[in-house]
């Protein structure tokens, strides 16, 4: 009985220590990221891998989500005779929720795993140790540029997702189904607020960017330096990023739109 309590206490302490370690990691990473802005070349390279390479999945997904929103939205609104509000429905759903959240989930899957695997493999191949032995801090040379690139890429990708989604629903709603184009856009423009809806959506995507980038880099850096370790790490990145993003989405939505 005492043993169980002792092991529970030890487990709790270990989790607490892990939390503290993770927090210190984040603080140091943030500081070094600010410093790394003086070396834009590294950031630009990473921006290519993280941003440009994610373009196809983000835009195609955005298009399909827009199609589905257009269809589903139409069927539901039609029942209350409010199908002209389709544009409004789609724009609000995308800019407030789907844009930031779905982009974050896709990002975790595509860019997050590649970040984790990349760092993990570098660790396994002793590249990070070699860098340290050369007197170069791997966190500032390898991790920080990737962090900054992810922070820049996320809001841009989320905006693209939402924009493409709106266009996708326009294609389905106006072109195919025949919703009135005038009301489609005017109701949208009247109802979507630049500060509350678009602005909050951008803030959300920035926060999600921090979450996904931090988790991907942290997990990769702490991975066991073996092939199994790296593959476990990439799985944890996706799982952890997804859960934390969804959890934060709930909190942020409550804060931003709940009128607390």
């Amino acid at each position: 009985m005492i043993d169980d309590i002792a092991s529970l206490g030890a487990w709790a302490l270990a989790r607490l220590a892990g939390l503290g370690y993770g927090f210190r990691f984040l603080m140091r990473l943030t500081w070094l990221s600010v410093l790394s802005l003086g070396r834009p070349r590294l950031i630009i390279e990473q921006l290519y891998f993280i941003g440009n390479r994610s373009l196809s999945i983000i835009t195609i997904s955005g298009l399909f989500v827009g199609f589905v929103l257009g269809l589903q939205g139409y069927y539901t609104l039609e029942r209350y005779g409010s199908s002209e509000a389709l544009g409004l429905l789609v724009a609000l759903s995308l800019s407030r929720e789907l844009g930031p959240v779905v982009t974050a989930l896709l990002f975790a899957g595509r860019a997050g795993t590649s970040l984790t695997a990349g760092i993990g493999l570098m660790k396994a191949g002793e590249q990070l140790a070699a860098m340290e032995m050369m007197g170069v801090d791997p966190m500032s040379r390898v991790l920080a540029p990737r962090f900054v690139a992810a922070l820049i890429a996320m809001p841009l990708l989320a905006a693209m997702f939402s924009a493409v989604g709106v266009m996708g629903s326009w294609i389905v709603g106006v072109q195919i189904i025949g919703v009135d184009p005038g009301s489609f856009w005017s109701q949208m423009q009247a109802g979507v607020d630049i500060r509350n809806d678009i602005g909050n959506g951008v803030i959300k995507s920035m926060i999600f960017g921090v979450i996904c980038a931090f988790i991907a880099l942290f997990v990769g850096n702490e991975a066991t330096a073996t092939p199994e370790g790296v593959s476990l790490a990439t799985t944890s990145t996706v799982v952890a990023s997804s859960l934390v993003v969804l959890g934060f989405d709930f909190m942020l939505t409550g804060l931003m739109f709940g009128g607390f």
Partner: protein
Amino acid sequence: MDNDTFLSVESLSFGYTADRLILKNINMRFRRGSVVALMGGSGCGKTTVLRAIGAQVRPSRGRVMLDGVDVHGLDRAGLAAARRKMGMLFQHGALFTDLNVYENVAFPLREHTELPSAMIRDLVLMKLHAVGLRGASRLMPSEISGGMARRVALARSIALDPPLLMYDEPFAGLDPISLGTIAHLIRNLNSALGATTMLVTHDVAETFRIVDYAYVMAAGEVIGEGTPEELMASSDPRVTQFLEGRSDGPVPFHYPATPIAQELGL
């Protein structure tokens, strides 16, 4: 400590946990300009000594003095400066896979110096020439053989002309030609740079051809030291078993088990 000693390891003890020490009271001296080997069986702790010198692990007791400075007493900036004086070659090269050969060798120069790119180019090509791979400068690490990768890593480790060179198992897994090449390079580079070299290895024959002094380790302790001739003449059975490669001796052939007669029920 005399001025002749560039690096010294004094009463070094280390273990990840207090009850299982990986290194027990290690004492070593590396004279300026010499090539010294650290030898022993797998798991004897020789790579850990290397890590302690490079301050990748912190000793529980003892210290490492590099050119009169305690390596473990340095702050982050001081340590980075000290590490620039060390050129380390990792076992499999540890080249940066996203950079080509040229960029790999140029890395320390770009990170630590403000030299113009024309000068960096000259330096990189000279280092690559020293290891015989100047023509491979545009290749990626995935496109070259293991032996070549190790030579590129060697070129990278001498990029800043460090006074201390450390090699972790430089001969492991190489074909005879590459083996001979690396050994030849280790010796010559040491003289050319006026550096102090230490090799961690368990290849006895190749090593004894190029080193001035050697330490033999087993189970975290130094069990023998001396010039190659002195070691070959040693009477310590652990040293002779290692140097001659006998399968049975102080390190037993059989993993501890119940007697075979009992196991087979005879």
